[in-house]
Each structure stands twice: as C-alpha cells, then as structure tokens.
C-alpha cells in the first residue's frame, strides 16, 4: 500500500487543514493554557470536529464510522500537530476506542463505539505507573475475592485522564511485573467510588492525571478481552497510539521547520537575508533530510496499520524513534535560528519546543523504542 495519499485521503487532509487553521490555530492553545481551562480542550471545537466526522475516521462502518483508515487518521493527526490543536481525539479514539474495538465483546462495542463516534463519550488509557513508559512492568493489581474484582494502586501521567468519562485501565491479574502474561484491561467510570483523580498540566498545555484506585470495584462486563490475556491487545493499541502520535509530531515538526525557513528568508542582518549564510543553509538542509527520512517512516507505519502487516511493532518503534529525534533537533534549531525572538513567548516557536518534549515521552522515548526495536530484531 502506498505512502502517497489517494484522492479521497487528500480531500480529507485539505478539509481538516482548512478547518483547523481557521478554527483551532495556536492562539486557541494559548487561551486554554492561560485560563487553566477545566478540560484543557474546547468542547465547541470537539463538537465541530464531531460534525466533520473526525472521531469516526477509524471506526468500522458498522459502528457508524467512516472506516477511513490510518492514513486518513494520520492526515488529521499531522494537521493537529501543525496547529497544536487540543482535542481528546488521541486518547479517546486512537487509544480508548481501539481497545474496545480490538478486545471488546460485541455488546461492549455496540454500547460504546457509536457513542464515541457521536462525540459523546471520552476515554483515557491508564497504563504508566512511573515516569518512564514501560507497559510490561505493570504492577497495579486486579484482585479477586469471592467473585468480586477490585483495583488498588496508582496510575500516573494518564493522558486526558482528568477529563475522560471512562478509563481503560491496564492492570495485572496474575504474574509479576515484566511478564507478558497476566495483563488485563478493564473499563472504569471516572466517577467510580474509590477513584481519585489529580490533574496534571504539562508545560505544553497538554493534560494528564495521576489516578489513585482505592478498592475500585469492577464487574465482569467491565473486563475487555480475556482476564490475564490482554497483552496482545494492549500491544496493538499501543502500536496504534505510537504511530498516531508520531504522525502528530511529524505535523508539528514540519510546521516549526517551515516557520524557521520563512524566518531565514525574511530576517536581515549584515545587509543580507540570514538565509544566505551557508552555515544556516546547511543546517536547514540537514534538517530537511532528517525530516524526509522520518516522514517516510511515519507514512509507512501508518500504511502498515492499514495493511495489518506483520511488522507493525517494528515500524511503530522505527517511526517514533526517528520522529522523536527529529522533532527534538528541529525544535532546538528553530529556537537558535530565530535568535532572541525564539525564546520569547510572543512567537509560537517555544510552544513547539515544549510540545516536542512532551510528545517525546508519550508512549515511549527513543531509548525505549531503540531497545524494543533491538528486541524485536533479536539482538
């Protein structure tokens, strides 16, 4: 399957690009950030995106979705990355809904997916337990006593965990941290008894929560997939997430690079445009090379999801590592090439710098993915 967009996908991309640059440009993020908005995203925007069908992009047709596939989703994520758009799309649709689509029973799917497609239910994936992503080390227990399941423990840095209606929680029902066996997925209402949510606002305006589970009761029908056998589903959900967030990063990285090029073409010193200096030209050209290479990896990973190829995990780690390193590098260079203006909050460059750093950590930094890549390649 091609990395080049087809007619339909290009149309989708143009529509979303247009819509977001008019309705959700970077100053919307500034407003959300500066007013400490409760949700951290605009509900009006989310409703508009829903009308455009954005939450249904991935959803299979039988659940009211468009089945546009991951290349379509990738175009939307890139556009959101360019505009620094705040929305629950990633947590709800890419992570949460995927868990239900891939692991849920028919009745769970019927009950939840159409509501998500209609923009009326938001989800968050509660997975990490420390400040480094390491899903296999999940220790929070799902205990069973007299047929009653309960969760006790803490999940940290749960993306959008402060505002989601329901949480998809990765727990351990057997085995030890480090085992692939014994992982389970459960669906918990965010207002369930015994659940305490502490909101975290990251430096880039993204939101998360630390969530304490104190004897939170779970019924059988809240379990997604097989008890103790959720590893494959979790893996697949994470791969989707890694690839989608990589697409968002690609968009952001391209935007901050384009803005820098524009500055090189306009800003004058010593009586000439600073873009005539070869020292800057070469660094810009090197960034472009790195960006194109990362783009190939991200686009290929998106299409590997559409094809359901056997090497999705490998492609996911490849894409995330390349774009992590690229976004980090490009955002640093962007600041440097803007000179003093680059470190003012007046320009948006700093917003991209911060967004890059937060995104680097989401679902695994480069060290995590290099290690995983090595493992998958058998060395």
């Amino acid at each position: 399957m091609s990395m080049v967009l087809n007619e339909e996908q290009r149309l989708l991309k143009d529509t979303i690009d247009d819509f977001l640059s008019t309705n959700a440009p970077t100053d919307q993020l500034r407003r959300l950030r500066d007013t400490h908005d409760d949700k951290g995203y605009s509900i009006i925007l989310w409703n508009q995106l829903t009308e455009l069908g954005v939450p249904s992009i991935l959803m299979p047709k039988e659940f009211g979705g468009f089945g546009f596939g991951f290349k379509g989703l990738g175009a939307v994520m890139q556009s959101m990355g360019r505009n620094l758009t705040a929305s629950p799309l990633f947590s709800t649709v890419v992570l949460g809904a995927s868990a239900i689509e891939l692991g849920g029973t028919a009745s769970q799917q019927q009950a939840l997916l159409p509501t998500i497609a209609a923009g009326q239910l938001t989800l968050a994936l509660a997975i990490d337990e420390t400040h480094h992503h390491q899903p296999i080390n999940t220790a929070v227990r799902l205990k069973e006593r007299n047929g009653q399941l309960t969760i006790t423990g803490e999940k940290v840095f749960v993306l959008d965990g402060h505002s989601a209606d329901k949480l998809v929680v990765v727990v351990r029902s057997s085995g030890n941290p480090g085992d692939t066996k014994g992982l389970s997925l459960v669906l918990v209402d965010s207002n369930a008894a015994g659940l305490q949510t502490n909101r975290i606002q990251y430096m880039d305006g993204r939101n998360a929560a630390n969530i304490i589970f104190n004897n939170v009761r779970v019924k059988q029908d809240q379990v997604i997939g097989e008890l103790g056998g959720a590893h494959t589903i979790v893996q697949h959900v994470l791969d989707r997430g890694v690839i989608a967030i990589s697409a968002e990063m690609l968009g952001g990285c391209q935007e901050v690079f384009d803005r820098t090029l524009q500055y090189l073409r306009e800003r004058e010193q010593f009586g000439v445009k600073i873009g005539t200096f070869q020292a800057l030209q070469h660094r810009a050209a090197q960034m472009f090379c790195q960006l194109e290479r990362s783009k190939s990896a991200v686009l290929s990973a998106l299409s590997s999801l559409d094809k359901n190829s056997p090497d999705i995990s490998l492609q996911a780690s490849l894409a995330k590592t390349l774009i992590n390193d690229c976004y980090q590098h490009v955002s640093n260079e962007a600041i440097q090439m803007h000179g003093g203006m680059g470190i003012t909050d007046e320009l948006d460059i700093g917003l991209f710098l911060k967004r890059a750093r937060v995104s680097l950590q989401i679902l695994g930094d480069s060290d995590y993915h290099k290690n995983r890549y090595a493992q998958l390649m058998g060395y």
Partner: protein
Amino acid sequence: METTEQFRLDIRNWLIANCPESQRQPIIKDQQIWAGRRRTFYCEDAKLWFERMRDQGWTAPSWPTQYGGGGMSLEQAKILDQEMKALGCRPALYDIGLWMFGPALLEYGTEEQKQEHIPKIVRGEIRWAQGYSEPSAGSDLASLKTRAEDKGNHFIVNGTKMWTTQGDKSDWIFCLVRTDHQAPKQQGISFLLIDMATEGVDARPMELINGDHEFCQTFFDDVKVPKNNLVGNINEGWSVAKALLKYERNMMSIMSSIVEKEEGDIIAIAKRYVGLDSNGKLSNNGLRAQLSEHLMRAQGDALSALRLYQQHKSGVIDGGLGLTMKYLSTSEQQHKDELLLAIMGNRGLSWHDQTFSISEKKTVKNWAYNKAHTIAGGTSEIQLNIIANKALQLPV
C-alpha cells in the same frame, strides 16, 4: 494486458529457472562482471547468467527494445529488481554506461549515436569512463580547462582529467571539454565521446587509501576526435552533463546498497564479535543502541526510496525528497562502516597481516574506500547547497 501479479510470477519463474545457484550468493567485489572489451568471467555460471540476462535485454530492463533493452515500464523494471533482490540474484552487469551515460544518451543523443552506443552498453561490450573532474575543477566543475579545438571535420583535444574511475580498464570516455573560451564558464562547454584507444590518450592509475588503484589521471595529448562524437549542440554540453549527474546521484544510492551485501548482515556480525548476554541481548549496551540507530536510519532511507518510487508512479511528486537521498545514503554508509569497525574492535584494524580473516580485511578496505561516497558524484556539502537552494528556496 498481463496483470501485475502474473508478470511478477513470470519474472520470478524465469529467474528461478535461469539464475544459477552460485549467482544467488551475496556479491563479492572481485566477482562483479564489468563491461568492456577486456571483460572476463571468473566462472562459467557467471558467464551463463550474464548472457541470459543480456539476451533478454534485462541488463537494461527499461531501455527501448530497438536498442536491445528490455522495453519494460518503470513499474515492471521495479518488479524485476524486487524479484532479483528477493531471490538474491546478483546484478548481471556493472558499468557506468549502464547506470549514467546510457540514460543521458537516450535523452540527448542523435538516433545514429544511440544506434551506435546503446546496444553495446546493453550487451556489456564497451566499458565507459567519466571524464568530468580535473585537477583544478572539482566541485566547481564548470571551471574545467580541457579544450577541444574545431578542425573542420574533427576536434583536437588537449588537457587532463582527474579521478577517472577505472580509466585504465575502460574503452570509451565521455568528456566535458571547453569549446568556447570567451563565453561565461557554463556556456562554453561541450559533451564529447572519446575512444580511449585513440592515440594520445593515456590513463595512469593512482593509489587510494584503501590500497586499490581504481582511479586514473587521464591525459589527452593532441587527441583526434570525429565531429559526430559530439552529444547535444556545441557549447551546450552543460545541460547533458547535468542530466547525467542526476543519474549519477541515483547510482550512488544504488552503489551503497550493493556494497552493503558484501559484508553480510551487520546484526550477525555484531552477535559474533560482541556476543550475547543471558537475555539474548548484545553484551555491549552502547553498541546495541548504536546498531539500532544505524538500522533505523538505514530503514528510513529504504522507505524514502520506496516513497519516491511511489510518488513517481502516482504522479504526485512533492519536490525535495529525491534530493535528500544521495546525502543521506552515503553518510549512512559511512556510519555503518564506523560501526562495523567499533563492533570488531582490534580485529577491525587489519591491513595485510595474516592474523586477520579475508572478510575482516575487506571490511576495513571498504571502510576506507567508502570515504569516497560523500565526495564522488557531488560532495555532501554541494548536495546541501542544492537542497538549500532548490528544495528549501533559501536565498543565494
């Protein structure tokens, strides 16, 4: 019309039936079949494989059949390439004519010139050399001084070319020569084909840091060249030269992948030289991370090549991607060479000594030789200049 899948299947079956087992081993430099009057085959299988491919025109699969080529579409040629790679078939023929000069001649040559030269390239009968650079004209190629004087029905050529790859083993050389000394430098250059057997042509080998003598300084002393060996119009050779450089850049990316196979699988080498711990991980964490970094970058480049091909096929070409490939693939090759040396530790420091295996020595020689990749065919710095100006539209 045959379906793509059927076509692929037919190609595969043909390759299985016609490619001898020995020609499906990773290629070794000494066993490459180079074109030319002095062409040799190190074994019968290699000859058979070359002849079968030649007779199909598949040494140049996408060239027109009227000149002996395979007449395939871009897509079909890609399928042939993919199937050959999948089966591990060696390239049947090596030649600069095949990779660089032929495509340019097909674009710019007269019918008569194509009839004369293209079939011989396809059939591997003539080996071509490139006569662009000079002692004082490298990156600034247009400042070249070798001159051709118009003597009515022929030219007389005088001057020196530099870095002529395999000049002493080549039969013909395509040269950039100055035909107008008054005009601005790009506009006084012509593109001339010279038979190296002509009196007054002398190619003298130079030793490189890898110990090989692959490059020559080529001297032209009152060399008589017929007028109809001029490609394109007089004083308009620069546009032919530039078209050819485009093919050269492509070739440089191909060459990196050909070299890759010689050394075998870097993962296997790492396991052998570094060892695995009880968890099945490479014992050296630093090298393990470096290996991932290299493999990921190389995979990214392979995907870019695929994306570029898909762009061409769909007609949606987004500018700069193609310009990044030479810069990226040649520097990645060098990262890989450095990593191989690091992996091999002291065993990666051999030269002649018997303590070292043949493949260890080869790795080191490649490491040294591949330093040329970021210089030949337009240096990395020149590539970055081109990207900055062409792809990024930065002001000059």
